[in-house]
């Protein structure tokens, strides 16, 4: 069961504004295999390509070059809607992950049917589903189990992000994508949501990709760490080595990696002259 590849990315390139003076080569040949049960944290500076990578996997960004295979299926050209059958996602902005004017129960009902047909002949939020939603909310310990009929837009960002996380697991995804999902929260709420993330990933035995800006979090959570720089994977640490990693070591690795980038750039510049 373990060591089965869930996600395989081959030679993925993404360009922005290709053919113009502002052309950016955002992803420069990403090769990555993620196996079942891996909880991968991704760090990197601004513009390193973290979000571009996640958007490519989720399907919100059409792929320029390369191939994405999920559980043996080539999903390179599948739409976001089609990929939703296998991929669940939590966005950075708490507003993005939920439909604000719908109730908590309605949001959860929609997520529980992720990727399935939306029938005209079944109720969207059946009474029979409420106990299950209530039980799931209870696990959050945020007192939300009595607020199934509250408009979700009235809840705080942290509460909504916790619910979005729960929603992503109501229907077990083959791949869970977390796009800096605690970046918009205050430190205390962020810690709570991260803890919940770890709990859900472990309990449901999920395979997950989590982007974070915080090196400490990248080390603390997950069992594999990737560092992106200028659209390339420059560090890939897993297992025991990752467990014993410290922030200074990570910084050191980061500097080394970007140093190499710098010299590369210098070479390019001098070659131009």
């Amino acid at each position, binding site marked *: 069961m373990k060591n089965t590849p869930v996600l395989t990315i081959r030679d993925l390139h993404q360009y922005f504004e290709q053919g113009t003076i502002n052309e950016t080569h955002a992803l420069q040949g990403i090769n990555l295999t993620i196996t079942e049960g891996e909880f991968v944290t991704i760090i990197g500076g601004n513009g390193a390509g973290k979000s571009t990578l996640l958007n490519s996997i989720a399907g919100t960004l059409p792929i320029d070059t390369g191939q994405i295979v999920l559980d043996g299926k080539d999903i390179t050209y599948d739409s976001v*809607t089609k990929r*939703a059958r296998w991929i669940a*996602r939590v966005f950075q902005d708490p507003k993005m992950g939920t439909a*604000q004017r719908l109730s908590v129960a309605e949001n959860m009902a929609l997520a529980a049917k992720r*990727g399935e047909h939306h029938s*005209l002949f*079944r109720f969207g939020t059946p009474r029979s589903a409420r106990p299950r939603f209530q039980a799931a909310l209870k696990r959050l310990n945020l007192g939300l189990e009595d607020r199934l009929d509250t408009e979700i837009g009235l809840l705080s960002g942290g509460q909504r992000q916790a619910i979005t996380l729960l929603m992503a697991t109501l229907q077990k995804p083959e791949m869970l994508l977390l796009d800096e999902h605690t970046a918009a929260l205050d430190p205390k709420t962020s810690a709570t949501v991260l803890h919940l993330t770890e709990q859900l990933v472990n309990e449901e035995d999920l395979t997950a990709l989590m982007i974070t800006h915080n090196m400490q979090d990248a080390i603390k959570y997950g069992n594999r760490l990737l560092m992106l720089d200028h659209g390339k994977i420059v560090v890939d640490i897993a297992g025991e080595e990752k467990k014993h990693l410290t922030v200074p070591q990570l910084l050191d690795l980061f500097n080394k990696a970007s140093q190499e980038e710098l010299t590369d750039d210098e070479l390019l510049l001098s070659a131009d002259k």
Partner: protein
Amino acid sequence: MDILLSSISQGLIWSIMAIGVYLTFRILDIADMTAEGAFPLGAAFAASLIANHANPWLATLVGMLGGMAAGLVSGLLYTRLRIPALLTGILTLTGLYSINLRIMGKANIALLNQTTVFSAFAQFSSTMQVIIVGALLVAVIMVLLVLFFNTEMGLAARAVGDNPDMSAANGVHVANMQIVIYMISNGLIALAGALMAQSNGYADISMGVGTIVIALAAIIIGEVLVRNLTLGKRILTIIIGAIIYRLIIALVLWAGVDPNDLRLFYAALLTVLLAVPLMRQLTKQYNRRRANRIHIKSLNAQAAKEDKAK
């Protein structure tokens, strides 16, 4: 009393149109101009069929289906060709003008002494006939819409209106849901057109002009009356809004305003209604600032007193 009854009868028919406009306006956040073509389209189908002695219910149904087809066209232009919503509506509306002329064969069809859907209640006065049929239809529409929006598909459609990205990420076919809303919306609008032609006794090629403004006014009156409601209750306020709107128009005409100036009045009234939320906010802000000025004055007075005490 006559004014009240005729306003109710007209308001009921307009409320069907307003409910249709509401679906695109508030659920998809689009002011869909297709409405002004779908309304006469429904009227054109119904009037030309009835003039040829077809069953009036069948004629009305055909009108409604025609409106759904128009909605399908706009929905496809908007979702598949990614044409901006406003242009989409104008394109369909422009095309429909020729189609409506084709259906009617001339610019105006009179329906004098024809059997209409209102004839079923011939024992009542003509106004009461419209009220009975209108109320029945509005009730059926309300029940069907509330049921629809509580199905899985309806829930997905509401989610699309709220947050298309989240909906897609949860596997909802966003474009299909938008098209469904476009079709239901314009089907209802055409149904209102078909009923209006039968109630007025004629269909006219230009009867759609300005109708979206009337529908929006009915919606906004309802929203100004009561804010934040579930769909079923919101439909009720739209019906009341439409009736109030017809009453206002009736009073304006009764007061001697030239009917030729009516469209200017429609536009002005809707402008005022659209400005109400801002006005409310500004009044609140004005009152808060006035209270705060008094508060600051008392702070100043106290500070001065403490200075003196030193």
